[in-house]
């Protein structure tokens, strides 16, 4: 099978396999395993894995101040910069925080996205021209997916809290404001699945994206699609007993796990896929979520000429000194009228100096 198909199929089979595992598990009455042990293990892996990874990143040094500057730098006071420019090339810490906030909350860089196309142009001697246009679809898909996912996660807190905080109820209310179906349809769930299908669709239809896509790119897409689909099915089609689900969830949250009888298999599949997502997170590209906070091209203030940036492992290097140059060319420099440290006659009397010198730090 060719490379691209193999990547796609492997991820699909993996997720279908996981669903089968959960299904068989529940049929074999392993509810305690799938309802208690695995969720705890997954949470442990999730938090431990992320903390381990973030510490590992954070402990590795940032030797150079290399922000990508996306607008005019701070220069003469009469070169005015608007707020957007100050955020795109921040010269002080507060603006750097602002840049990061925009990056994390609004996907600033992705918002810049362009598309290019090579168009046949017979009137040009080379017969072709490149054109570019603003292309916000990827930004829209990404932002829709991430905010929908966040809303869904927050909404789920009502299973883990008793009494449910007002904020969560309010959120659920807003999420379900379009009432066209009973029970109330939460928009976030719909948006989540639609955005996921878009993200998957572009990977499959754009030949270049298909070419670079790995099983590790498809896998989280299928996994979250599976989670979303099972969630939606549970709510609107094959209803499960919500009170019993809440009993289990509360038990987990209060470290007093119980396995209520009679929760449907669909729920355990849903829960298992969530667990896999949590456990997989720290080993995968999903690490982009904590990683973006630490990205040196974004989170560094652009003030390298105002404040000296320290490289913790800076070391002295061997270099060619001025005297090395003069010793080699003294005669010629002198003749050309270039000032020298030691005049040629004096130099002849003394031994030539060493050629290479260790730099001092």
């Amino acid at each position: 099978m060719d490379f691209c198909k193999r990547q796609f199929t492997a991820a699909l089979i993996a997720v279908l396999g996981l669903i089968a595992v959960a299904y068989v598990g529940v049929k074999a009455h392993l509810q305690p395993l799938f309802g208690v042990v695995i969720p705890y293990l997954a949470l442990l892996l999730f938090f431990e894995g992320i903390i381990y990874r973030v510490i590992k990143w954070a402990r590795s040094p940032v030797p150079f101040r290399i922000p990508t500057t996306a607008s005019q730098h701070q220069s003469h006071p009469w070169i005015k910069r608007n707020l957007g420019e100050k955020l795109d090339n921040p010269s002080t810490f507060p603006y750097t925080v602002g840049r990061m906030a925009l990056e994390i909350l609004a996907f600033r860089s992705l918002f810049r996205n362009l598309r290019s196309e090579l168009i046949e142009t017979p009137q040009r001697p080379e017969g072709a021209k490149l054109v570019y246009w603003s292309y916000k679809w990827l930004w829209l898909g990404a932002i829709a997916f991430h905010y929908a996912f966040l809303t869904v996660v927050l909404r789920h807190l009502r299973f883990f809290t008793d009494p449910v905080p007002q904020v969560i109820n309010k959120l659920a209310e807003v999420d379900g404001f379009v009432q066209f179906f009973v029970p109330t349809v939460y928009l976030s769930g719909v948006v989540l699945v639609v955005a996921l299908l878009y993200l998957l669709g572009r990977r499959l239809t754009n030949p270049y994206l298909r070419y670079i896509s790995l099983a590790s790119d498809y896998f989280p897409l299928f996994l979250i699609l599976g989670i979303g689909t099972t969630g939606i099915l549970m709510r609107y089609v094959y209803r499960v007993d919500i009170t019993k689900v809440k009993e289990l969830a509360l038990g987990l949250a209060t470290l007093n796990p119980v396995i209520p009888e009679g929760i449907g298999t669909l729920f355990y599949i849903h829960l298992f896929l969530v667990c896999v997502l949590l456990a997989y997170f720290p080993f995968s590209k999903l690490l982009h979520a904590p990683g973006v906070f630490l990205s040196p091209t974004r989170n560094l203030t652009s003030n390298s000429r105002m404040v000296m940036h320290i490289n913790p492992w800076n070391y002295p290097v061997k270099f060619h000194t001025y005297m090395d140059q003069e010793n080699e060319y003294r005669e010629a420099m002198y003749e050309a009228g270039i000032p020298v440290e030691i005049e040629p006659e004096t130099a002849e009397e003394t031994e030539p100096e060493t050629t290479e010198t260790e730099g001092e730090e």
Partner: protein
Amino acid sequence: MATLPKPEELARSIQYRVPDRGWMEVKPEFRPGTFLNAASPKWLEMVSYPFPREWSVPDEDWQLPDNWKEIILEGMEDRLNRFRTLKLFFDICVRCGACSDKCHFFLGTGDPKNMPVLRAELLRSIYKRYFTRIGKALGDLVGARDLDESVIKEWFYYLHQCTECRRCSLFCPYGIDMAELTILGRELLSSIGLNVEWIMASVGSCYTRGSHIGATPHAYKDMIDFFAEECERVTGILPNVTYNRKGAEILFIAPSGDYFADPGTYTYMGYLLLFEYIGLDYTISTYAAEGGNFGYFISHEMGKRLNIKMYEEAKRLGVKWILGGECGHMWRVCNQYMTTWNGPADFLEEPVSPITGTKFENAKAHKMVHITEFTADLIRHGKLRLDPRRNAHIKLTFHDSCNPARAMGLFEEPRYIIKHVLPEGNFVEMPPNTIREKTFCCGSGSGVNADEFLEIRMRGGFPRANAVRYVHEKYGVNHLGCICAIDRAVFPPLLQYWVPEVDVTGIHELVGNALVFDEEIERTTDLRDRDLVGFGEEEGGEDEE
């Protein structure tokens, strides 16, 4: 040398199509015109670089050291521990593809491995395989693959089809910077003796003699003296130039490209005329004779070994601060690396313009000022008498060089100067998606401007040339302005190929044209001996504006 296809053939050959086989199985073909020559051993010996030997890129056997694999893996581990960027950028890419069509080499070749995401994957796959458990377990399903010689060859090929321009990093939602990966990847290649002749020759010459072009101190002086004489011939004003003068207020450092060949030389004449006009107390050095830094194109360490000359010489001469010429990667290095490498520059003073009294607050620790910051300040304070009509024959568009754009943010200063030295209406911008922070590389940055690489350079420069073609056709633009010496060296052949009607100029050449001296002779030509438009016939054509 390889024959270069005609522009229309080359444009037609750009097919945005992917190969049938997966990228791990497809290997680059070293076709003349698409690879850089191997470095000869003498340059490596000059700077004590490892494994100097005679080898050739098209050869099957690259004569790698026996333990090359160990060296690469240990080198990678070492860099993972020293650079957060490397570790982070390996871990967090989601392959969203936002960067893919942002790279000029991708746009000009259509080769999927020139999408920054996949170019990075060439390195990432080795990291995955040898430094992550999931990569060891799942192999190519998570993008991991074994390290063999073909991987090294692939790195050599594609890491020299990245000019470290950072355009991809602008669009990446996580700020992943291909330039950083290219720099570290090239360091790894150097560690097993794989270097490029063009870069290593420049590095060796710069290290031992003072500049990339390898001019000896006295030859260097001859060149600059010649420019001063040329200034006198055209303007009647002979700029006074001093070399290695102790006690000068300012040390001026320009890239060697500006004294090596046209049209950079005219920019150098512009510098000299400007300094003479304002009576600047400055000197230039035969030791810190190079603004550019090809060392940075092979390793951080070599970059530091060349860059250190600037502060060392400023200290020896006892100047107050340093003024830097128009150069792209020079300013990437000076802005983002110099003080970290070789600072603190506490032996210098906070830069103050001796003419206007302006404090350059934004350079207070670094003590080096970009010449466009300096000149824009002079113009702002009305210190220069300029006659823009002397540039009336020039219809200009401005190319933002990658490094001052995306590693500094120097956009307004050069434009401010341009607007004051050109007649109104003679300056037009290229389309907004191709300028400022979104600017396209010239296609020959980061040390790949060698002759044997012409085909790839013409491809990489296609997006830029294409935008120049647009303003040429629409507005009759006949000059491309820039503040980079590599631009001035590589745009002439690039534009000759794609848009032959457009010439290349530095910004201070335009300043030199426009400056009105009290004692000058009648100016009938510009610094290039081209006739001025509307001058010469009637007397008194040089009234104040």
